[in-house]
């Protein structure tokens, strides 16, 4: 129910579905997910490999391959319909109003072009601006992301920079046109923990300064807790739990979310050397007809009803929602294990 007092979300996604034709039929990689992102807000999509989180980000950017079928009831960026947008519309948006930061700074920077050329490319394409002004803007942003001797870096090539510096260059590149939305797919996974903290701080600060919305895709629950305003937990192509970071981490409802939090050693909480929680089994195949709760094959709260359609539940007054046949994510008589 839209609140008339609240501004329209920057990004609205309803019923996003991604089907991939494979040898044995169709892989239902993402099945009808809904989410909103407001201006200046950070949404973290957290999930394990194969959950469909990276496909979701590529779908938003219109970067899925031609064989992949993407459908949505509604997918709007600031009132622009993305479902029916043609290549020209998407090209005008990408790199300008929405941009992306990828995981591997080595493979996503072009080794044959200088840092300066790559930084200014989007700006020269989208704006009527001189080469000198574009380079000045590039220097300004390199300084902003904490790169020293920024002007001398423009002539350098990616191989001359360390991993941490390359990722900063990627961030500077994504910010060149002051986008309203940044999608960052595992932006710090390949980096050292010390550099990770610096890059994340930088992203959060810049986001706040520029009132930029961010979708951060990660498997790291620590990153999510520290960066997210809103969290979406993704499992096997569905969002199984969504809510504020506080709701999802302090009162997790879905058995999968609870299970994930038990799996990681938490300094100060988990006893050193004690056994960690586990989630047995593996992610189900999403080829062919997928029905019922996708987590039921690994769930410790499974009952017969999990084969049927799973309702959305709203445990509190806020935006917190989860999908489970059990009202509180626990079967009758079940207890929360922490």
């Amino acid at each position, binding site marked *: 129910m839209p609140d008339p007092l609240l501004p329209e979300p920057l990004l609205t996604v309803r019923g996003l579905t991604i089907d991939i034709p494979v040898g044995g039929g169709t892989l239902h990689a993402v099945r009808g997910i809904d989410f909103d992102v407001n201006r200046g807000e950070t949404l973290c999509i957290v999930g394990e490999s194969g959950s469909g989180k990276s496909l979701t980000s590529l779908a938003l950017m219109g970067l899925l391959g031609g064989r992949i079928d993407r459908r949505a009831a509604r997918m709007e960026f600031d009132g622009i319909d993305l479902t029916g947008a043609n290549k020209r519309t998407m090209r005008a948006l990408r790199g300008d109003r929405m941009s992306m930061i990828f995981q591997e700074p080595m493979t996503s920077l072009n080794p044959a072009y200088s840092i300066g050329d790559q930084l200014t490319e989007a700006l020269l394409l989208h704006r009527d601006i001189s080469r000198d002004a574009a380079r000045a803007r590039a220097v300004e942003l390199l300084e902003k992301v904490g790169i020293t001797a920024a002007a001398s870096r423009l002539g350098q090539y990616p191989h001359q920079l360390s991993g941490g510096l390359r990722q900063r260059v990627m961030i500077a590149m994504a910010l060149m046109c002051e986008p309203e939305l940044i999608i960052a797919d595992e932006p710090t996974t390949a980096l050292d923990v*010390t550099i990770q*903290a610096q890059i994340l*701080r930088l992203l959060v600060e810049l986001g706040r300064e520029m009132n930029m919305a961010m979708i951060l895709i990660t*498997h790291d629950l620590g990153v999510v807790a520290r960066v997210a305003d809103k969290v979406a937990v993704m499992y096997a192509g569905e969002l199984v739990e969504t809510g504020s970071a506080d709701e999802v*981490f*302090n009162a997790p409802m879905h058995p999968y979310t609870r299970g*994930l939090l038990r799996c990681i*050693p938490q300094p100060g909480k988990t006893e050193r050397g004690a056994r*960690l929680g586990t989630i047995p089994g593996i992610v189900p195949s999403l080829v062919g007809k997928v029905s019922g709760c996708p987590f039921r094959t690994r769930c410790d709260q499974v009952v017969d009803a999990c084969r049927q359609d799973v309702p959305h539940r709203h445990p509190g007054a806020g935006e917190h929602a989860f999908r489970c046949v059990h009202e509180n994510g626990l079967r009758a008589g079940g207890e929360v294990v922490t």
Partner: protein
Amino acid sequence: MTATSKAETPVLELRGVTKTYSVKQGLFGTAKPLTAVNDVSLSLGRGQVLGLVGESGCGKSTLAKILLGLEAPTQGEVRVDGERIDAADRRKLARRIQPIFQDPYSSLNPRKSIEDIVSLPLLVHDVGDSASRSKAVREILDIVGLPARVMQTYPSQMSGGQRQRVAIARALIMKPEIVICDEPTSALDVSVQSQILNLLGDLRAEFGLTYLFISHDLAVVEHLATRVAVMYLGRIVEETQVADLFDTPRHPYTQALLKSVLTPDPGQGVPDTELGMEYPNPIAPPPGCHFHPRCPVAMDKCRTDRPYPVATPDGHVECHLFGGEQTQPTKSA
């Protein structure tokens, strides 16, 4: 600096181990020395888990390679059970020290069946006949939680977690005393990671294994390790019991590393590690204390004089804040 009582010989001991490479910068550049591991002395008792932490490029992996006999130290020696191991004798070393690598997707030969992969060490060391090797594989697979039917399958048919179990089975089939775990769970999903960490803990208890556990994930190190060594530019700057390190970190670098751990606690934001600068170039390490350009509490002395190890109740720290004067002649270069 030892984890064991005086009477007991440490299962693994490093004395003044140094590894220097000669590195050419550019096509026509002159070769310069790069000291990847700089005068490292460590001692590890049986059944201990030494967590080795530090940023990429600090020399963790070079140290692991020396222990596996894949690299010979330029100086110093490695002792297993008090016996000096010559890196040239790799077969002997391989019986006692085995590795588990980070990526179970690239560390298993895709063209070999699981039985072939796991039994290869037995074949190399000429242990038993075909039937007894097959039996040994079945037993070790059972121990790591894989059914015997996987013996005839191939790595491509397995999940990441199953593959890492195969890698563990292969490492354990020679009944080594020491296992070098180089980022063993960082390529795995969270739910799989915990299974592998539990398995490593169980195996250690059951077989009295000693681990060198290299990881960038400090929460995992805190959970599994009994001792922790912090490495910076080739040197162990702090080494002590796990509780001591995490409860009272002494070295400013250790403190910064601990600060950078993102626990899943919402509302706390991303911490400022105060590590301003980039990781320094190991070919031209900063003078004095190598850490001083990034150190938030660096003093004048740190810019000129190198610190020496200072004993702490459970280990050592190498920092001018704690003294760190040269009290005895060291072997270091």
